[in-house]
């Protein structure tokens, strides 16, 4: 450890693709995704684990990417908002957000989509109360949340039928 804080190479799978990137230990996962890998779909809000904008899925769990070091992501499977849509087709969850106008400025949307995606993948029958409880970790200043909850409720059916579900897409 002659050069404290020197970069090391980490490798993980990002939206189904193997990536390798040199990161300083202090680099958070979200900064690595945005600045080093150019995946700017994941947003950075508070950088202190409060707002939920940076939520990504790591090994099937929703995590705050500002509270995880990129170096801790070594060997993991990561899905970001870029991993939801396939080619030119929005995922059922994204389509539901569009139908219900579940976004306005869009800043919080990637984090909310990934939180909801993680939730419905694990709990495809989550009720409105459960959805509200889980989304309490994501701050949205525009919508008042009601259309978001409606969209997530509607998207549930896609996660119950694997043929049309969004769940497998992120794990290509």
């Amino acid at each position, binding site marked *: *450890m002659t050069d*404290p*804080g*020197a970069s*090391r190479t980490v490798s993980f799978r990002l939206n189904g693709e193997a990536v390798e990137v040199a990161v*300083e*230990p*202090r680099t*958070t996962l979200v*900064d690595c995704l945005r600045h080093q890998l150019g995946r700017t779909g994941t947003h950075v809000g508070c*950088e*202190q*684990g409060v707002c*939920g904008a940076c*939520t990504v899925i790591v090994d099937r*769990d*929703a*995590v*705050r990417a*500002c*509270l*995880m*070091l990129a*170096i*801790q992501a070594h060997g993991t499977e990561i899905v970001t908002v870029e991993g939801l849509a396939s080619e030119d087709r929005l995922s059922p969850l994204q389509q539901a957000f569009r139908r219900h106008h579940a976004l306005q400025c869009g800043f919080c949307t990637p984090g909310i989509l990934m*939180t909801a995606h*993680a*939730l419905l993948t694990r709990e495809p029958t989550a009720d409105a109360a459960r959805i509200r*409880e*889980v989304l*309490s*970790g994501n701050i949205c200043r525009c919508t008042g949340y009601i259309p978001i909850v409606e969209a997530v409720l509607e998207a549930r059916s896609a996660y119950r039928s694997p043929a049309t579900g969004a769940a497998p897409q992120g794990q290509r």
Partner: protein
Amino acid sequence: MKLPRFDYARPASLPEAVALLQEHDGAKILAGGQSLLPVMAFRLAAPPLLVDIGGLDELTGIAIGPTGIRLGARVRWRDIEEHAGLADSHPLLVAMVAEIAHYQIRTRGTVGGSLAHADPAAEMPAFAVACDGDIVLTGPAGTRIVAARDFFTGALETVLQPDEIIVELRVPPWPRERRWGFEEFSRRRGDFALAGAAAFYDTAEGCAENAHLGVFGVEGTPRRLAVAEALLNGRIVTAETIEATAAAAARAVEPIGDLHAEAAYRRALVSTLAERALRRAAGLGAVPA
């Protein structure tokens, strides 16, 4: 803010982790990082080395046995939530953990991390103290066990030495018939509580015994309130007994005042939350308006 520069190591064993702490002054253990990384982002701490124990699978166990429950330091809130046996074996644990932070934090935050961070308003230190838990630590001199009530010495302060690591939390077994209640108050779902109260007692011939009343978010550390507990032991738990106990609890605390709540407000919360928790324990329902 961005994190200050630091070095990183991921030891393959507990002794190796202890050795790294010994060799590097100011080094800190990184588990889930859900408290440590925000502290570093605020530049309230700038450890030169983070020792990531993410590879130490021996710290991830949940064991339920005749001598009680053991939670490994790396057990996450999610693991407790999804464990098949804990809801029956320790309903108070499950109820308290259900109030910790938000969904995304719960997938990474750990038992050991919360105990080491020692936030006065955090549920896990409160649980450990209220349930007479023991915290198992390992360091260069071997393993030692510290009672939770002696572990927390102040807000964000513990007896954990710089070269020691929390291994597990042990709590005594939970009798199935035990009466219990847990209440906390926060301004928004998932926020740190402005105050909280965990209460339980056993019953013998209609009277309470072994009463425990722990409060947190009120003083620098979570604490059992012996003066209030004494008003329950040996008595039939009625609405009147509970009211007197809650009033004694409010008198017994020396609350912190800060920008979230002044001391008098926290004192009032102790009374209200202790009363609600005890009424829930006694099956009395909500306080009549």
